[in-house]
């Protein structure tokens, strides 16, 4: 494994692996070494984190009343 510094493009390509913590310790250190000196990639990483945070604020579609009633009915039948 060469110790060549990662380019910004390479960091962006493996940013999810970095966030998922699935990189080897060596690769992880290379990403961190790069981030320490690169404002562009630091901003990109921050954007990714923010994207994840905001996505977590979405709410999914609610169940229509009719379907809910039908399911509750099935649940009651099952319980009985």
């Amino acid at each position, binding site marked *: 494994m060469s110790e060549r510094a990662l*380019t*910004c*493009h*390479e960091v*962006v*390509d493996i*940013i*999810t*692996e970095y966030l*998922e913590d*699935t990189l080897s310790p060596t690769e992880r250190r290379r990403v961190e070494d790069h981030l320490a000196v690169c*404002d*562009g*990639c630091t*901003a*990109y990483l*921050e*954007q*990714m984190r*923010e*994207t*994840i945070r*905001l*996505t*977590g*604020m*979405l*709410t*999914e*579609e*609610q*169940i229509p009343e009719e*379907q*809910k009633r*039908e*399911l*509750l009915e*099935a*649940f*009651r039948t*099952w*319980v009985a």
Partner: protein
Amino acid sequence: MTDAPLKERTASAEEAELIARLRNGDERAFEALVGRHYGTMLAVARTYVGSRSVAEEVVQEAWLGIVKGLDRFEGRSSLRTWMYRIVVNIAKNRGRREGRSIPFSALAGGNDDAPIDPEWFQGAAERAPGGWRTFPDDWRGIPEDRLVGHETLQRIGLAIDALPPMQAEVLRLRDVLGWTSEEVRNALDLSETNQRVLLHRARSRVRRELDAYLSEGRDDR
């Protein structure tokens, strides 16, 4: 079981309680469970079948299967993993009967939809090959009100809806519902690498759309 990390043990303790309540016929617990998962199940089912109305039927059928199966649920996987496997199985069967057989590559999105544009980076002949041409915006200067505002979240929702179906599915489970990668892999029967690649493409695309939206009207910089 005793080797499971603390977080998983806590989750399964909560789950054991939920299952006990469901088996005791606790309607509120059931209603809450349905409310929490209905929308995502619908989106997941929609991946495999041709129309929204069929997806609704699939989800309804899946819930009936879940209710009937509760007594037999043995806890070998988490409850929600088990529930989504039921949804996926029914949806796949319906899709097959509809004569829809979509190759994985179409569901997952190919390389032509790459969410990271090579043009953002300097070429081999330039001063710093692989380095940014222009740095990404620093979002920390954007007011929180705007970030979490209705319109921003709506844009994110639209960006997710426009993703190739499997990418949208993985992103919803991971980032909207907060599932672990392991749960998603089990529910959707994906390899570790596929799950991560789908998540990477999906998140990168949503970030890109979000950035395009947030930089609107910021030309004064």
